[in-house]
C-alpha cells in the first residue's frame, strides 16, 4: 500500500498522474476504485441475461445475430472488468459465481424483464447510451491507468450497440402502426429508468470519493444532462414522447415530472403523480427488481454442480 497520504495522493492525481499499481494506492483510493469497478462489471454481466431474454423473440436471423453479438460483447466487457478487480486482489470466480443475487451491484434497470425484441432495441438506445455516458467519462478522466486502457475496446463496441438501438428505433417508428406503439410502450418505462440510472441529484450529494480521487470526472447531474441531450432528441425525432424537454431559459434539459417518482415493477409503470423521497428509491433498489434472482441464477445455475463433479465430490 502507498506510503503517500490520501491528501498527497489526491494532489498527485490532480496534476494528471495516472495510478498503475496497487502499491501506489491508498486504502481509500482502492476501496472507491473497487466499488466503481464492481458496479460496472455487474452491470455488463447482468445486461447479458436481460438482453438474451429479449433476443429470444428476435424477428429474423439477422436481428438475432445482432442481438447475440451485443450479448457476447457485454459478457466480454464483464470479463475485462472482473479481471481488473482480480488484479486488485478480488476473487473473480467468487464475484461471478459465489455471491447472492442481491449482492450484485447492477442498476435497477437490469433487474427488469426485457420481454420483447422491441424492448431490446430501446434498451440498446437508452440503457447502452447510459453505459457509454458513464464509461466515456472515466475513459477521458479516470486516474486509474489500467481501467482507462480497458475502456478503448469497451467504448468501441458499445458504439455498435447504440447504433443497433438507434437505427432500429428509427426504422420501427418510421414504419408506424404497431411497431411504433411498441416502441412508445417500451420508452414509457425505460426512459424514466434511464433518468434514475444516474442516481441522486448533485444538490443532495456533491462530493464523493470517486470524484475526489478522479476515478470519474463528472457529477451525476452532468452525466444525466449528457444522456438526456442524446436520448430526448433521438426520441423526438422518432415521434416518441418522453417526459422531458429542452428549457431555453435554463439552457438544459428538464424533466416534465417531479423526480424521483414511484415505480410499479409488476406493471412496468411509473406513477408520475406519486413523487417519493430518495430514501424510498434506495429502498426499492435494495429490494431489487423482479428479475434479479432469475438473471443471476441463469449465470450461476450450472457452476456449483459441475465444479463439484470435476473435483470428484458430489
Amino acid at each position, binding site marked *: 500500500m502507498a506510503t503517500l497520504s490520501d491528501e498527497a495522493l489526491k494532489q498527485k492525481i490532480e496534476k494528471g498522474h495516472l495510478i498503475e499499481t496497487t502499491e501506489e494506492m491508498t486504502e481509500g483510493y482502492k476501496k472507491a476504485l473497487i466499488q466503481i469497478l464492481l458496479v460496472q462489471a455487474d452491470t455488463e454481466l447482468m445486461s447479458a441475461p436481460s438482453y438474451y431474454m429479449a433476443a429470444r423473440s428476435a424477428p429474423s436471423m*439477422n436481428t438475432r*445475430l445482432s442481438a447475440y*453479438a*451485443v450479448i457476447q460483447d457485454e459478457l466480454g466487457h464483464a470479463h475485462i472488468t472482473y479481471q481488473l478487480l482480480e488484479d486488485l486482489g478480488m476473487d473473480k470466480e467468487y464475484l461471478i459465481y459465489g455471491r447472492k443475487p442481491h449482492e450484485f451491484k447492477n442498476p435497477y434497470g437490469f433487474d427488469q424483464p426485457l420481454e420483447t425484441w422491441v424492448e431490446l432495441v430501446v434498451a440498446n438506445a437508452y440503457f447502452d447510451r447510459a453505459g457509454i455516458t458513464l464509461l466515456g467519462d472515466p475513459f477521458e478522466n479516470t486516474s486509474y491507468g489500467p481501467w482507462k486502457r480497458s475502456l478503448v475496446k469497451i467504448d*468501441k463496441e458499445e458504439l455498435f450497440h447504440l447504433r443497433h438501438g438507434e*437505427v432500429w428505433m428509427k426504422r420501427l417508428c418510421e414504419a408506424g402502426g404497431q411497431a411504433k406503439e411498441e416502441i412508445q410502450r417500451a420508452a414509457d418505462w425505460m426512459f424514466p429508468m434511464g433518468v434514475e440510472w444516474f442516481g441522486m441529484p448533485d444538490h443532495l450529494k456533491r462530493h464523493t470519493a470517486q470524484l475526489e480521487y478522479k476515478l470519474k470526472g463528472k457529477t451525476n447531474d452532468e452525466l444525466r444532462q449528457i444522456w438526456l441531450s442524446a436520448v430526448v432528441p433521438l426520441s423526438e425525432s422518432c415521434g416518441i414522447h418522453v417526459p422531458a424537454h429542452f428549457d431555453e431559459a435554463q439552457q438544459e434539459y428538464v424533466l416534465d415530472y417531479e423526480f424521483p417518482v414511484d415505480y410499479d415493477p409488476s406493471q412496468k409503470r411509473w406513477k408520475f403523480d406519486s413523487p417519493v423521497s430518495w430514501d424510498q428509491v434506495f429502498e426499492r433498489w435494495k429490494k431489487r427488481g423482479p428479475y434479479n434472482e432469475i438473471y443471476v441464477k441463469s449465470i450461476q445455475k450450472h457452476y456449483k454442480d459441475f465444479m463439484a463433479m470435476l473435483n470428484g465430490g458430489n
Partner: protein
Amino acid sequence: MLPTTLNESQIWEALKEVEDPEMPISLVDMGMVFDVSVEGANTKIQLGLTATACPAIDFIFYDIRERLKKEGCEDIEIELVWDPPWTKERISEEGRFILSTWGLSV
C-alpha cells in the same frame, strides 16, 4: 425523381461515403466492395464480409441502398462474395491508417 443511371465510378464514389457500421471506415476502404456493375437501370454490387456471422448485414445493406437511392438508383442488387474471401490485404492504405489510430488515443 426519375431513376437516373450512374456509371460505375460514380457508384464507387458514393459507396466511399458508406461506413462500416462497426468502425469509422468506408466499405470501400475496408475492401468489402468487390465489384460494381451497372446494366441499364440495374446496379449490382458484390460485397465481401469479414465473417459469415456479420452482425451488421441489415445495416450495411440498408446504408448502401439509402446512399444509392439519393443518387436515384432504385434497382439495386447486393450479392455476397465468398470466393475469393475478404482478407485484410484488401484494406486500403487510408483504411489501415484509420484502423491504426481509431480509439487508441488514450
